[in-house]
């Protein structure tokens, strides 16, 4: 499993954002929209046009709404424990699933950028996060974007990063990887890494993140 297993994205309208899950922007098959429990959204950060970073209270109903337009918006999710048996994957701790062969805790961040600024070139959270180091809106198809992966606010080495679901590389010692954009429209970068844990409910924590922006 990886960040690709949960495809979250923000849709923007005139009043704010809606957090959705599904396969609209996925390269793998699946339902266009997959409902989720709104309680999985643990926190929302909004980077305002002036550079202020504020915590917002999301509307706790499916689909989760953020009622503000931001230069960048980030949601931190925790979809809880997952367990895999020989036949299926269930959203329960491994200790509660008979025949579970592995279990994990899934934590993700989803970030959408709508306006570029120096503040947008810095991470907005302590979770795993992808941040462009250059103005992504200046890109043309075929250009490469320098992307920084951070965790707990620091560059993270060895994080596999995918573009449109296709893994293109892993971050180096500086946490940076170069990814080429291939088209205009919605850009989806995803990344994940696994943190081993020793507890009855899981073998590991899967940290995932999605970076989204639109390219005209």
């Amino acid at each position, binding site marked *: 499993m990886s960040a690709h297993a949960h495809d979250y994205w923000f849709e923007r309208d005139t009043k704010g954002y809606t957090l959705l899950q599904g396969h609209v922007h996925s390269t793998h098959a699946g339902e266009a929209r997959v409902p989720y429990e709104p309680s999985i959204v643990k926190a929302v950060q909004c980077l305002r046009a002036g550079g202020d970073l504020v915590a917002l209270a999301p509307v706790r109903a499916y689909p989760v709404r953020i009622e503000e337009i931001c230069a960048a918006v980030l949601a931190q999710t925790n979809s809880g424990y997952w367990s895999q048996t020989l036949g299926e994957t269930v959203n329960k701790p491994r200790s509660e699933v008979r025949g579970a062969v592995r279990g994990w805790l899934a934590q993700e961040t989803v970030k959408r950028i709508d306006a570029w600024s120096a503040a947008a070139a810095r991470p907005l959270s302590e979770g795993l996060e992808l941040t462009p180091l250059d103005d992504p809106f200046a890109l043309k198809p075929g250009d490469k974007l320098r992307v920084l992966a951070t965790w707990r606010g620091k560059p993270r080495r060895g994080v*596999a990063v995918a573009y449109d679901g296709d893994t293109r*590389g892993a971050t180096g010692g500086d946490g940076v990887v170069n990814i080429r954009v291939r088209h205009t429209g919605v850009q989806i970068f995803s990344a994940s890494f696994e943190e081993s844990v020793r507890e009855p409910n899981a073998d590991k924590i899967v940290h995932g993140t999605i970076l989204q922006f639109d390219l005209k």
Partner: protein
Amino acid sequence: MRVLLLIALLAARSALAHHGVAGVGAAGLNGPGAPIESATSATLPEGSVLGYMKLDHARYRTFDDDPANPEAKYANFWMAGVGYGFTPWFSGYFFVPYNEKIDEPGGFSTRGVADVSLMGQVGFKYDRGFHLIPASESLDDLEDWRFTVFGGGTLPTGNPNLRDANGNIDPSKSTGFGKPSYNIGLTATKMLAPRWTANAELSHLGFQEYTYADGNRTKFGPEYRANAALAYRTLTDADRKFRLDLCLEGQYLRIGRDRTNGEYDAASGGKVFYVLPGVRLYLDKVSVAIGVKKPVWTDLNEEADQQGSEGRERYRFIFSASVLF
């Protein structure tokens, strides 16, 4: 991530067949492909060790059925080597060749360890300017124009003074040059599309004059190569770490005349264009390349008298294998 891996390199290149030099190539499951024989623009990952072996089997055309006039029949140019990635952009190599030059019955056949060679390779790329190859690159970085400059030389570890049954020395049958030779070159590689990679090599091999035990002085003619190749990734199985590429190379070789005692030799030198189709497969950290090389155009200086030289092969069978640790 350095998705890359392996492969490699190079060749016994030769006028009358005892030159051995090296060039390099590398690739991963989805990264750039590599030619069968030409040098390519991949450097070894920092701290990695490459083990390499190659066989270049040259089968010569023969023209004289008279057993009293034995001709060169075939030659096997074996090479074993090791490479090391000192930095992401600098790799060093050491090669030990073993040559067999076999005549028809009654002729003068020789075999033995030839001149060992050392080579250094500097890799760089163009990405909004020229940069040395960095330690970490994405697949998208690997799509950039990539280049290497390489240089090296041989040490006279082979025997230049092998004598036939009559006690004569034929420098072309020796297993050594007697003195160091040098090799310099430039490569350029570009992924044209996710499955297509183009590669080019320009290189030069030069020799020094050596005075043989019989008192004669010989200097082999310099070699100039211009190679171009296309590799097409036909099959990739990520689970098995398997990849299969089809390759097609065109190799232009220009050889200068040899000189003996200061005079240019007849029946030496000329121009040859080879075509080399082949396949290269990758399995985890191992890469194997197989191809058959044929001269499709020749302009040798005295072609009728140059049996057993470059351009007069029926074919050359190329096999190489490498593993990266």
